């Protein structure tokens, strides 16, 4: 049984005051998330990540298409007892303390008092909120509110956890803790479905990712497959190559950056690497290293978005790269 399955999921929002016109937020999304995996939904702002999560959590309704969670229809209320959800930029009740809010969340899941208290204690401690449990939430920092949000999403010991931008508002330490927590949840056999635009988090955590842009699925696959798609660029570092050689090398390189005596070249085409090395040997320059750089999730993401990675700052370039000759 799949954890999440969507079929041609489409959502139109109607915008405008007098003449309402549809704006497509999600366009025929087909996803299959296996149980026990960490699945990342990536995309820039406005890509449809939050809309997807809101449809799955029945906060908005799809215009067309269907979705199932844990094999059940979305409007099956009992199914939601097996699911946890952290909204994006969460806000909880100012007048409640963390303990009271967690208690309320536990009551809504129908947990008995003793069990509720046991889970509250465990989760607040696990998220580093044990000492702040009796403080009103209005006194919490953004990062602490985020932690409470994660804690309430786990109060029912869910099989499937939806986290909308879980690292938002957290400091580096907090991010590390949440990363560890997600990995622990995976070890416990839970399915994690989270949206993020922080690619490094996805790279560390996800078994599979889906990339959305303007409501459309741009790509979906296992992280291992994506990251072994091939060499994105070959990095060649030389020592004191000389002006003459550099002039010739610029025909094959994307960027040339000098740091002290060393010059770092990026050769985009694998077929040009041999030519570059032959030139270096002919000029009897010293090769420090030749390093094939594999495609990162960021490269993959940028490729799916239809953009190319940015070149390094030109100020550091030995000679300003000639735009007409680049990539030839």
């Amino acid at each position, binding site marked *: 049984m799949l954890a999440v399955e969507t079929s041609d999921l489409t959502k139109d929002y109607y915008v405008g005051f007098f003449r309402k016109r549809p704006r497509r937020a999600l366009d025929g999304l087909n996803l299959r998330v296996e149980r026990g995996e960490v699945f990342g939904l990536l995309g820039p702002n406005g890509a449809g990540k939050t809309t997807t999560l*809101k449809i799955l959590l029945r906060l908005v309704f799809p215009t067309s298409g269907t979705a199932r969670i844990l094999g059940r229809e979305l409007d099956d209320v*009992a199914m939601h007892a097996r699911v946890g959800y952290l909204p994006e930029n*969460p806000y909880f009740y100012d007048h409640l303390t963390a303990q009271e809010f967690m208690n309320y*969340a536990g009551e*809504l*899941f*129908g947990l008995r008092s003793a069990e509720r208290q046991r889970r509250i204690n465990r989760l607040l401690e696990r998220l580093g909120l044990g000492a702040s449990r009796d403080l009103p939430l209005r006194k919490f920092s953004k990062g602490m509110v985020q932690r409470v949000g994660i804690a309430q999403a786990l109060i029912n010991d869910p099989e499937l956890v939806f986290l909308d931008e879980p690292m938002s508002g957290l400091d580096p330490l907090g991010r590390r803790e949440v990363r560890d927590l997600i990995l622990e949840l995976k070890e416990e056999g839970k399915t994690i479905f989270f949206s993020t635009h922080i690619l490094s988090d996805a790279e560390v955590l996800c078994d599979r990712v889906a990339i959305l842009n303007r409501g459309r699925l741009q790509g979906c696959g296992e992280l291992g497959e994506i990251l072994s798609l091939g060499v994105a660029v070959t990095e060649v570092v030389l020592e004191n190559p000389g002006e003459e050689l550099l002039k010739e090398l610029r025909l094959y390189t994307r960027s040339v950056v000098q740091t002290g005596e060393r010059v770092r070249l990026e050769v985009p085409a694998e077929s040009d690497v041999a030519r570059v090395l032959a030139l270096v040997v002919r000029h009897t320059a010293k090769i420090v290293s030749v390093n094939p750089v594999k495609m990162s999730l960021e490269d993959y993401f940028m490729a799916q978005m239809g953009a190319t990675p940015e070149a390094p700052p030109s100020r550091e370039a030995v000679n300003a790269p000639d735009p007409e000759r680049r990539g030839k």
Partner: protein
Amino acid sequence: MRRVVSIALHTFKESVRERVLYNLIVFALLLMGAAILFGSISVGIEQIILVNLGLSSISVFGLLMAIFIGIGLVWKEIERRSIYSILSKPVRRAEFVVGKYCGLLLTLLVNTAIMTAGFYAALFYQKRSLSVADLAVLEAVYFILLQLALVVGLALFFSCISTPILSAVFTLCLYIIGNLSADIRWFGQETGSAVVEKATAVLYYLLPNFGDFNVIAQVAHGEKIPAYLLYSNSLYALLYGTILVSAAILVLEEREFR
């Protein structure tokens, strides 16, 4: 049912932590104190003045609480997005609405009880004793509560579709019109026009009718409240309140939280 109770108790807790509530209670109790003063300078009608002013205070301040807390009941949850974490749990939207409604009713019940206790304290101070006949005041208080239940229903309904300011305006307008609905119907009958008569009759049945809930003057003058009014007002409040809460549920069932 357990979830409705949880939401109701949470709403009650939220309401009693609102500072405005305490201000209103203090004002109401001060007004009752003032009623003693007014009574003491009104020779022979001290008790009539006290009952009139006391019950009016309970009614007016209860109305203010019902409107000011009611209009934010659902709107605040939507605006602050706290509703996301509630509705993503195994909670039906209908349970959420009913829980919110019951929570505010509980708040108003407790506040009205406090104000009624204050009223009886004022009455005891004036008369130096209390009699069984003074229990008639409770009938008027019960009718005020029924009225407040309808006002909360209106505020809750508008809270699901509009902003607090507009909700307050709509609720207050309907409250005023509801107090005049018998007059509107009478006006229609007096015009002699069949169309106007039918239109005002439709309005009379469609809009909430608060006129029959106001028995303050009768109670103040020691008149007995007919038993049928107790039943008809209870049934009317139950039916109309159910319609209002159902309408709020229907609106929220269709609402998207973008």
